[in-house]
């Protein structure tokens, strides 16, 4: 005949017993085990005694004593818009700024042809300067000793694709490493003074 090992009540079973959530297996065990019956009954009595313990009150002036040492903070009104106070220097600066803007608009309106010529000339100069910079940059790059090797690597579409994948991988690793470096640790923050 096989005898199964006896599985008596655990702490979790006791909790389940008190909340009437005991498994059917343990309920069957309880019906036939005097030790567990005694344990469950005693535990129930302990919990009942704990629940019936009286609550104690401090002295009647407790609240007043606490309040005498507490600062009741009243938050100040939050201004919808706040302007700095107008001093003589600020008024002078604002007047100068407004006068400058009016003078600028007036001059631009009366010298339109001259202004257009200046703008055209500036745009042409900027374009010339930009293209010269680009051409010099490209010439510098192609003159580098490693340029030929790089060009050969990307000779065929397959090689180009592999190089592109390698570059993207390198870029991704860089971003990941940077994130790890700059992300602050997210520890749990408890409440003030606790």
């Amino acid at each position, binding site marked *: 005949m096989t005898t199964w090992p006896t599985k008596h009540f655990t702490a979790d079973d006791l909790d389940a017993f008190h909340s009437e959530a005991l498994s059917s297996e343990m309920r069957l065990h309880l019906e036939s085990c005097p030790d567990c019956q005694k344990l469950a009954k005693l535990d129930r009595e302990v919990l009942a005694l704990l629940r019936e313990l009286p609550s104690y009150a401090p002295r009647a002036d*407790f609240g007043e004593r606490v309040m005498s040492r*507490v600062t009741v903070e*009243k938050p100040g009104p939050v201004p919808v818009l706040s302007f700095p106070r107008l001093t003589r220097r600020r008024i002078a600066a604002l007047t100068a700024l407004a006068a400058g803007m009016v003078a600028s608009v007036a001059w631009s309106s009366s010298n339109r042809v001259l202004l257009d010529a200046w703008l055209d000339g500036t745009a042409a100069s900027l374009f010339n300067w930009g293209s010269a910079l680009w051409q010099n940059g490209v010439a510098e790059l192609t003159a580098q000793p490693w340029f030929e090797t790089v060009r050969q690597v990307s000779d065929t579409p397959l090689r180009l694709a592999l190089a592109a994948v390698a570059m993207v991988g390198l870029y991704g690793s860089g971003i990941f490493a940077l994130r790890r470096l700059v992300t602050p640790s997210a520890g749990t923050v408890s409440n*003030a003074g606790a």
Partner: protein
Amino acid sequence: MIPPGSLRAKTDQEVVALAKEGSEEAYRELIRRYERPVFSLIFRMVRNRELAEDLSQETFIKVLNAVQSYRPEFKFSSWVFKIANNAAIDHLRKRELDTLSLEGSPHADTPELIEATVLQVSERGENQLQEVENRELGGTIEQAIARLRPEYRSCILLRHVEGRTYEEIAEILNLPLGTVKTYIHRARNELRILLRSVREE
């Protein structure tokens, strides 16, 4: 001005929000709600009325002076009990009071250590709970709680006297959930042993 009594129906979070707006009545309401549970917890931890008054007062001053920085995602009661428990435990650590256990320290892992930490009954401050100890079983339980290790005592009081959940207690005491469960069941085991011995006498 909020009329006294009108705050009673509000939740803790609502009262705290009013306190943050500078309502003195809200401050008083928070004291009214928690003075008994906080005082009872601390009293049962330190077992001295004067000291419990002082520590409860410290607790409320700390809580109310920091109410502006209270974050509503935490339960207000957990925050209050956390500060109260810390005040009591800090005091017990300073005074090295009452490390009593029928089973020895939970950290003792050899028979010698268990023997060394078992049943260190303090003689100090026992008369503070005399009046309740006179009531038969209630008194026996009070006495038994007083003899538990402070960690067990906090756990059992919060769970079975204040009715907090295991999760809340873990948050209040800053302990893993498993440790809280272990402490509570060890404490209950000690109380059962005591109750049984009283019955057999």
